[in-house]
């Protein structure tokens, strides 16, 4: 059984599939849509329209990038406010056309930069939390790698939140926690343990509904995910909008 720190390393590991891989392998006919219509296109978040087993859906993912050049372009998967605003724009579009929304999360956190603050990182995240809470279409969010704090939560207000076996979800990076609490960045392992960040912890605490088992070869994961998404979105649609939103409210109210 891997420790929390080991899982953190796996979640951040080289070669681990990023959001783009899930979008490519779980859906068909993906068409990427760009820009927040206010400031810029943030490559740290990719989004667009696709089909899930034939059904039109809106897909959004925080993308860390593949090679070094791509990683730099995507700011290593740390979105700026315009990324969250693009995501919200696509979700509102999904609402208009009654498309369910699927989000993939893999980020160390929202970007900490001068421009991000100038353009209202906090406000952008806050708005997503509020708007996603009453988005009229079904929303499923899946933590596939790192789930870093508010920057991850900004795409994880959903009817169902799922996580991969070796993904993590945390209020603060274990490094940040160690340096703030113990003034010692080397105590990362202890911090990772104390913060309770593993998929198992998430299931136990009721933060997620489902944990996907991983395999060396992710083909099986993609297949399972596709089947689960198709079934769950069908169920969520059948519930009806008002009841779905009531359940979504209760889902977060219990914490």
């Amino acid at each position: 059984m891997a420790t929390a720190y080991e899982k953190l390393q796996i979640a951040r590991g080289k070669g681990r599939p990023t959001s783009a891989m899930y979008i490519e392998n779980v859906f068909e006919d993906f068409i990427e849509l760009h820009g927040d219509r206010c400031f810029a296109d943030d490559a740290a978040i990719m989004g667009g329209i696709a089909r899930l087993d034939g059904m039109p859906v809106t897909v959004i993912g925080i993308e860390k990038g593949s090679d070094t050049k791509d990683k730099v372009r995507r700011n290593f998967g740390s979105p700026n406010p315009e990324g969250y605003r693009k995501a919200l724009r696509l979700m509102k579009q999904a609402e208009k056309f009654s498309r369910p929304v699927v989000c993939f999360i893999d980020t160390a956190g929202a970007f900490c930069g001068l421009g991000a603050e100038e353009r209202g990182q906090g406000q952008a995240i806050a708005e997503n939390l509020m708007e996603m809470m009453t988005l009229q279409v079904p929303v499923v969010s899946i933590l596939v790698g790192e789930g870093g704090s508010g920057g991850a939560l900004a795409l994880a207000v959903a009817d169902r939140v799922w996580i991969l076996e070796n993904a993590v979800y945390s209020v603060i990076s274990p490094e940040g926690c160690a340096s703030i609490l113990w003034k010692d960045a080397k105590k990362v392992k202890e911090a990772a343990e104390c913060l309770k960040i593993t998929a198992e912890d998430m299931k136990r605490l009721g933060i997620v509904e489902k944990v996907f088992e991983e395999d060396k070869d992710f083909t099986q994961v993609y297949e399972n995910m596709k089947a689960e998404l198709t079934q769950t979105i069908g169920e969520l649609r059948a519930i009806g909008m008002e009841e779905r939103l009531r359940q979504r409210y209760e889902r977060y109210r219990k914490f």
Partner: protein
Amino acid sequence: MKKTERNGTGRKRRLYSTALYGKYRVVVTMNLMGLFKSPQNELESGGRKISEVENTGIHTTCPKCNAVILENDLWDNLKVCPSCSHHFRLSPRQRIGFLVDADSFQEMDNDLTSRDILDFPGYDAKLRNARLASREKEGVICGNCCIKGETCALFVMDPSFMMGSMGTVVGEKITRLFEYATEHGFPVVGYTVSGGARMQEGILSLMQMAKTSAAVKQHSDQGNLYITVLTDPTTGGVTASFAMEGDIILSEPGATIGFAGARVIEQTIRKKLPEGFQKAEFLLEHGFIDKIVSRKRHRRVIGKLLSIHKREVS
């Protein structure tokens, strides 16, 4: 009862009496060292204080302009420095005392207390210390009140309780307040001061951002008014949730408001940050707050906003 405590310079002080000024308890202290030997110059007395608040109970040194202010004058001025308008931090009860109509505040949910859910090392001790330091059970005070005759629900966060960090109880109290306000059609006025989510409660504290946002949205969708007043400092998960979700966002002058901490940003971008970065004035300039209101005008401005938004019964 005689007690000793350490002041900022590390010297021991004896608290020898407490006095009541109005309804506020003020601790009067005396520096015993000073009886026998008075400092010859600034260096001998430990150097000029620049940022540290030297509070003797009789007078206070302003951390911004170094002016020495008599404690009574400071109180008369709502804890705002008379010479440079520096806004001192306030406890929630002090703030409520300054803000609401006399005897109108009725507290709610004061019985909720945090516990160490995740078994986080040192959290129990931190909670105990926070309770002692703040004399409160948790980092936010909620209730209903009247401001200039207008009824509203009010929450005020507490800077001396783990720097107003948001754990499950803070989130729960604020959520309950919004649900109460939604039920009765009351506007909500909220004073924020917070270092962000409380990491000792791990992912559960992150969930408070979603929980409170859900309650704010429900309140908002019913056409109710929510005014936030951001005070120094409002950062992290609180900025990224209910602090920035107000219909009208006010701020005290000079308050630090942001998502990421300035030190973290400096380390990330490896550059010095410009003067005034993340101050209320910076946010106003960038379009993220509606108005900077000095503390003396809070009652008047909030009262007026509440009155303008009064919902006619039809």
